[in-house]
């Protein structure tokens, strides 16, 4: 549970989901990873949302699938953005 986190390469993850509350951010990471969709929690970029301290970087090509999964698990998110790293 408390292992040191390795910095992963998430250059390829171009989508960012923003949330109202952190419970939902953490839960969505867990749910997506379980379904083999690449996802990585990041400090929420202020320029796209002032709401929650945590946002989720994910594989933007799977946007529609992700939307469906999040709704199914009662995860409330604010918005899905196209937000590449560079």
């Amino acid at each position, binding site marked *: *549970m*408390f292992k040191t*986190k390795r910095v992963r390469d998430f250059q390829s993850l171009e989508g960012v989901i923003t*949330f*109202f*509350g*952190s*419970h*939902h*951010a*953490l*839960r969505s990471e*867990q749910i997506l990873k379980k379904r083999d969709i690449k996802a990585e*929690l*990041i*400090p*929420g970029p202020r320029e796209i949302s*002032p*709401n*929650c*301290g*945590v*946002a989720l970087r994910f594989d933007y090509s799977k946007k529609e699938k992700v939307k469906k999964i999040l709704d199914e*698990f*009662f995860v*409330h998110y604010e918005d899905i953005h196209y937000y590449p790293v560079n």
Partner: protein
Amino acid sequence: MVSKYFTHWGFEEIKLVKMYYFDNAATSWPKPGSVMKVMQRYFFYGGGNPGRSGHRKAIEAGKTVLNTRQLLASLFNIKDPSSIVFTKNATEALNIAIVGSLKPGDHVVTTSMEHNSVMRPLRHLEDGGVRISVAKTDSKGRTAVRAIEREVEDSTKLIAVTHASNVTGTINDIEAIGNFCRKRNIRFLVDAAQTVGVVPIDVEKINADLLAFSGHKGLLGPQGTGGLYVKNADLSDPLMRGGTGSLSDREDQPDFMPDRYESGTLNVIGIAGLGESVRWVIDRGVERIMEHDSQLLEIFVNELSENERFKLYGLGKAYEQTGVVSINIKGLSPSRVGEVLDRKYGILTRIGLHCAPQAHKTLGTFPDGTVRFSWGVFTKQKDIVDATHALREIAEGS
């Protein structure tokens, strides 16, 4: 290191004496050893503030809280874990549910077996114009649906019922009461402080809109933990408002779960321990724990029921009662019995009114109260036999 401040905790003295702990209905002891280990690990390696920042310590703390929330959700068969709110105990949860959901002019029905954590907030609201009806239970503490139905009015907003009495352990048929609430479209609040972890609870089956529970009783977690299940965020107003780590650009309270009710930094170290204890309880199986408590109940009741010097309250029936029995010895005051049990035999019980004057009036034991024995998953059959022997000795010696 020598401190100039002398602190005396007194734990060591307690450790030296052989003890029988029969006060699990107040708080359970001992706890699974792994609970302390998880809390220790959180203390040394975790320690961030959940939901406040995006750095890894904050995220790990957030995951710790999420983990406990999910375990509780699977224990109660709750589909959306975010509908569980952490509180410092069942009392705080009941206060959110009661004070937050009633307005002046509303009517509420409760029962005559309630704990003061339900009665006191209600009596406080009564001064502000909320009307209260108390449904009478039978002399064993059981609440009939008909007794509640009789008190219900058109303006009834809430029905608040304890799942099991903390005085007699009597388990209410909350499924039947829940069905009634669904039919009449009235909010249903269940006080599960005494049954969580020792009686199976399924919020869908019992149709609970609000369910308050403590973390340090049947769930075997650390003190300072508890929670409230809220079916919809618009059911109740929060008692406290403040920082949640969300909607930080706005000065009004978030309206979504669980942030609406969780202002300020959570007791994450306690919640980490609670998560481990819930995992332990799920692994052991609530049904199995109930079976264990019921077996001990049969032994306890069998040992004492034939002796006419003892008066037992409640049903005295396995599976219809939690591991709680209230007794009195004829001719002796409860406080005297409790004192001798502790001083002479090392048997720790709770005497008096158990924060439930209304319940003792129902049983006819007000204002002296009873001697309450409550056991748990770590209590052995021999402990029960030893306790009944001690009780017989006290009864004969008087």
